[in-house]
C-alpha cells in the first residue's frame, strides 16, 4: 500500500487540519474549492467551516478569528483575491495573532478564469510572504509551515498552488497528530485599530520584516540548489516539476535553483547560485517574478551571468507550461541549432467546447428572454457562472462578461451612456449574493430602468454545487435562514419583482416583456433547480414526422441533440426530459416518454 490517492486540494486541507486550524472560510472558485470542502468533510468536529458570501467577507472572518488567537485559513481563487484585496492590504499593516494562511489558487492557461494574474506578484505588492508548491506533497508541508511562519512574523502568509497542484492526485500516506493550538480570546489593544499614525510605524516594521523573512527563506527547506554545472535553471512551482522531468528525459545535468518560498526573495541563496553559473534559464508560470528578482540581484552584485526567460523570449510569457514547453525552452536556451521535434499531425475531429448541460434551466431562461426580446434592440450583460456559456451559438445571450457582479452594473453604465437599447443583466443566485446586491441598490438609487434576471438554480453550480445564503443550508449541512432573493429585491426598492418558471416559456416571455417596459429597475427571478441535481422523469424521442430541419438544434443547442446525415437524434443517456426541444419543433415530431 503506497498511500491513498488524493487531489492536491484534499492534501492541503489535511495539512491545515494537522496544523490545528480552527476557522476556515472561503468563497468557491476553481481550482481552489475542494480545500474548504475537504476540511468540512473530515472535520474532527471543532473546526468552524463556512462558505462566506464573498472573498472579502471570508478574509475578514479569518482575520477576526486570528485576532482571537485561532489558526485560520481562508481560501479563494486568484480573481477572488482582487475582491479581498482591501482587507488583505490592511492586514499586512495590522498583523495577525493566530496563524493565518491565505490560500489563493492561480490558474495558468487560464483553464477556468478571467485572468492569468500571478498571486506571487500580489504577495509582493502586499508585502506578504508567499509559498509556491511544486507538488501536492510539498503543498502539504507548506501549509503547515505557513501557519508557523504566520505566527512567527505576525503576518498572513499566502499559499499559492496552481491548478495542476490543486487538481492533480498524488499518493498520500501521512498520518500526523493534530497540533493543538487553542485560541486564547480577543485582548483589547490599540494595535488592532488602524489609524494613520499606527500605519506609518507599522509600515517601517513591515519593511524590516521583509528583510528578515528574505534571510529566513534563503535557508528554507522549500528552496534549494540541486545538481551542478555552469548552465543553470531557476524554476518555481509546477514549472519546477516540468523542468525536472524535461532535464531527466534529455539526460542534461544542470544546476537548478528550485524556489518554493519565493517572496520575500531569498537573495543570499540566489546570489550564491548565480555566482556558480554562467547562463540561467528561468522557468515560471504566469509572471516573471523570479526572473526579475534574479536580474535585480545580478545587477546589485555586479555578477557576470546571462539571465534568460520571458523577457528574452526564451520562455512563454502566457499560458500553462508543460513538459514540452520546458523542454523547448531548455533546448532553445542551451542547445541552439537543435531542430525542434516535429509536432504530430492534427486529428480530423470537430472541436468540443463546454456547453450548458442538457436540461439546464439557464437554457430555458435565456430562450424565454430571447423570445420576449425578438425584434427589439436589447443588450444582454452576463456574469460569472455556468450561464456564461449562454454566449455560445445558438443562444448568443451573453454580450458582456467582466467579473463577479458586473452584469448588473455594466448594464447601468450602458444606459447612462445613452445606449439606445433595453439592458438586461443575467446573474446567478450565488453571484447575486456575492456582489450583485450592491449593484441592485445602485440601480435603484441612481434611477436606472435595467432589468435584472436572476437565474436561481439554488446552488453554486459551476464550482460543484456549494450551498450559499439563499439555499438555507450551511457548509456543515446545518439548516440556516434562507435569504430570499425576490424579497431582497423588493426591500431594495426594485420597481417590479416577479418569480418565474423558466420552462413555462410563454409565461416567462410575457413577464419579461412586461418587466422591460417598467419605469425603474425590474428584477425577474427564474427559479428552477440545477439539472445536475435532479433525477429525470422523462426523455425526449424524435418521431416519424421529423423532416430533419434542425430547428431544434438551431434554437436551443442542447448537447443531447445531434444531427448527422440529415437525421435528428436525441441521446437518451443525456436527455433530462425538460421539454424545451418539444416546443421548438414545427412538426410536433418530438415527444416525451416516461423513464422507467
Amino acid at each position, binding site marked *: 500500500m*503506497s498511500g491513498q490517492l488524493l487531489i492536491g486540494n484534499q492534501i492541503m486541507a489535511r495539512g491545515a487540519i494537522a496544523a490545528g486550524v480552527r476557522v476556515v472560510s472561503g468563497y468557491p472558485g476553481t481550482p481552489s474549492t475542494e480545500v474548504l470542502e475537504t476540511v468540512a468533510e473530515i472535520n474532527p468536529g471543532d473546526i468552524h467551516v463556512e462558505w462566506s458570501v464573498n472573498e472579502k467577507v471570508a478574509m475578514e472572518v479569518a482575520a477576526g478569528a486570528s485576532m482571537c488567537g485561532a489558526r485560520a485559513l481562508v481560501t479563494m481563487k486568484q480573481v477572488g483575491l482582487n475582491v479581498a484585496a482591501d482587507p488583505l492590504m490592511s492586514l499586512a499593516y495590522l498583523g495577525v495573532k493566530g496563524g493565518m494562511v491565505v490560500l489563493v489558487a492561480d490558474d495558468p492557461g487560464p483553464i477556468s478564469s478571467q485572468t492569468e494574474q500571478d498571486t506571487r506578484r500580489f504577495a509582493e505588492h502586499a508585502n506578504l510572504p508567499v509559498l509556491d508548491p511544486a507538488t501536492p506533497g510539498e503543498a502539504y508541508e507548506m501549509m503547515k509551515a505557513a501557519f508557523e511562519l504566520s505566527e512567527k512574523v505576525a503576518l498572513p502568509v499566502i499559499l499559492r498552488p496552481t491548478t495542476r497542484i490543486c487538481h492533480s492526485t498524488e499518493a498520500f500516506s501521512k498520518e500526523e497528530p493534530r497540533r493543538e493550538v487553542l485560541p486564547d480570546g480577543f485582548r483589547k489593544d490599540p494595535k488592532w485599530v488602524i489609524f494613520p499614525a499606527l500605519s506609518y510605524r507599522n509600515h517601517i516594521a513591515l519593511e524590516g520584516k521583509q528583510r528578515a523573512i528574505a534571510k529566513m527563506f534563503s535557508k528554507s527547506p522549500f528552496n534549494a540548489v540541486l545538481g551542478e554545472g555552469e548552465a543553470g535553471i531557476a524554476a518555481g512551482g509546477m514549472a519546477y516539476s516540468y523542468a525536472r522531468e524535461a532535464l531527466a528525459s534529455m539526460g542534461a545535468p544542470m544546476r537548478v535553483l528550485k524556489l518554493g518560498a519565493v517572496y520575500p526573495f531569498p537573495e543570499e541563496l540566489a546570489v550564491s547560485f548565480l555566482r556558480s553559473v554562467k547562463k540561467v534559464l528561468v522557468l515560471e508560470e504566469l509572471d516573471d517574478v523570479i526572473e526579475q528578482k534574479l536580474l535585480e540581484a545580478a545587477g546589485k552584485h555586479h555578477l557576470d551571468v546571462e539571465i534568460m526567460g520571458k523577457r528574452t523570449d526564451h520562455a512563454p510569457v502566457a499560458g500553462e507550461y508543460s*513538459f514540452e514547453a520546458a523542454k523547448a525552452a531548455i533546448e532553445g536556451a542551451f542547445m541552439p541549432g537543435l531542430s525542434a521535434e516535429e509536432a504530430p499531425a492534427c486529428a480530423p475531429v*470537430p472541436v468540443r467546447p*463546454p456547453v450548458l448541460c442538457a436540461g439546464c434551466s439557464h437554457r430555458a431562461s435565456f430562450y424565454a428572454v430571447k423570445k420576449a426580446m425578438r425584434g427589439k434592440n436589447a443588450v444582454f450583460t452576463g456574469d460569472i457562472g455556468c450561464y456564461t*456559456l449562454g454566449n455560445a451559438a445558438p443562444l448568443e445571450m451573453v454580450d458582456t462578461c467582466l467579473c463577479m457582479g458586473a452584469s448588473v452594473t455594466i448594464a447601468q453604465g450602458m444606459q447612462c451612456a445613452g445606449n439606445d437599447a433595453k439592458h438586461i443583466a443575467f446573474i446567478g443566485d450565488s453571484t447575486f449574493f456575492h456582489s450583485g446586491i450592491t449593484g441592485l441598490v445602485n440601480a435603484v438609487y441612481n434611477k436606472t430602468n435595467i432589468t435584472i434576471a436572476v437565474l436561481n438554480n439554488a446552488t453554486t453550480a459551476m464550482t460543484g454545487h456549494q450551498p450559499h445564503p439563499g439555499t438555507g443550508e450551511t457548509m456543515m449541512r446545518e439548516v440556516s435562514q434562507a435569504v430570499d432573493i425576490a424579497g431582497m429585491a423588493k426591500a431594495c426598492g426594485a420597481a417590479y419583482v416577479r418569480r418565474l418558471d423558466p420552462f413555462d416559456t410563454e409565461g416567462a416571455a410575457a413577464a419579461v416583456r412586461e418587466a422591460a417596459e417598467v419605469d425603474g429597475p425590474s428584477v425577474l427571478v427564474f427559479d428552477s433547480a440545477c439539472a445536475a441535481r435532479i433525477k429525470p422523469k422523462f426523455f425526449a424521442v424524435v418521431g416519424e414526422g421529423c423532416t430533419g430541419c434542425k430547428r431544434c*438544434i438551431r434554437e436551443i443547442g442542447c448537447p443531447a441533440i*445531434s444531427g448527422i446525415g440529415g437525421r435528428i437524434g436525441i441521446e437518451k443517456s443525456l436527455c433530462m426530459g425538460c421539454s424545451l426541444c418539444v416546443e421548438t419543433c414545427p412538426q410536433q415530431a418530438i415527444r416525451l416518454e416516461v423513464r422507467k
Partner: protein
Amino acid sequence: MNFDVLIAGVGGQGTVLASKIIGKAAADKGFFTRTGETIGMAQRGGSVVSHVRIDSEDLSPLIPIGRADVLIAFEPSEAARNLCRLKKGGKCLVNTRPMPPVTSSILEETYDEKKIIEYISQNSDSCFVDGSGAAEEAGSIKTLNVVMLAAASEMGLLPFGTEEIIKAMEGLLPEKAVEMNKKAFDAGIKLVCEVEL
C-alpha cells in the same frame, strides 16, 4: 518502471472515476502514482482527459506528447484528439459509439465517423469495442467507464490483473453501486478483442 495511461472522453462519461480506479490499483500495488484531470468549467460536456502516471515520483502530473503507454477512449473523436500523446507502438482501446458535439451540428462542422476511425487505426495499435452497448445491457450507460476498464485489463493493456482492478473499484464505489458495476465489469471482459501486435 514508469507506466502512463491516458483516459479520454466527454464531460460526464466518468473519466475521473476511471483514473481513480487505475490509480488506486497502482497505489495498492505499492507504486507511487499521480493523476492529472480536468475539473471545472471544461467538464460541462466538453472534451476531458485524465492522465494516470504509475511509478511517477519524479514526474509531472501530465503525460508528455508521445509518451503514453495506453490510451483508453470513451468516444472515437476523443481518441483521435488525444492520439498524439500515445507513444509509438502504444495501444489504444476505443468505445465505438460516437457522440457528435452539438456545436458541430450548429457550426456545420462535419463529424466524419469513418475518417476518425481510419485515423485511429492508421496511427495506433487500436482495438474498437461497443462499450456503450455493453454498459446499457449491464443496466446503465453510466457504467461505461467500468466496462472500458474491464476490457482494458482483460486485454492485458494495464499492468494489473482484472482482480486487482475489481478490488480497487470496490474500494472506491459506494456499496449500493458495487453490484451494477460488477455486472458492467463482466460485460467489459466479454468485449475483449485481439490487439494487433
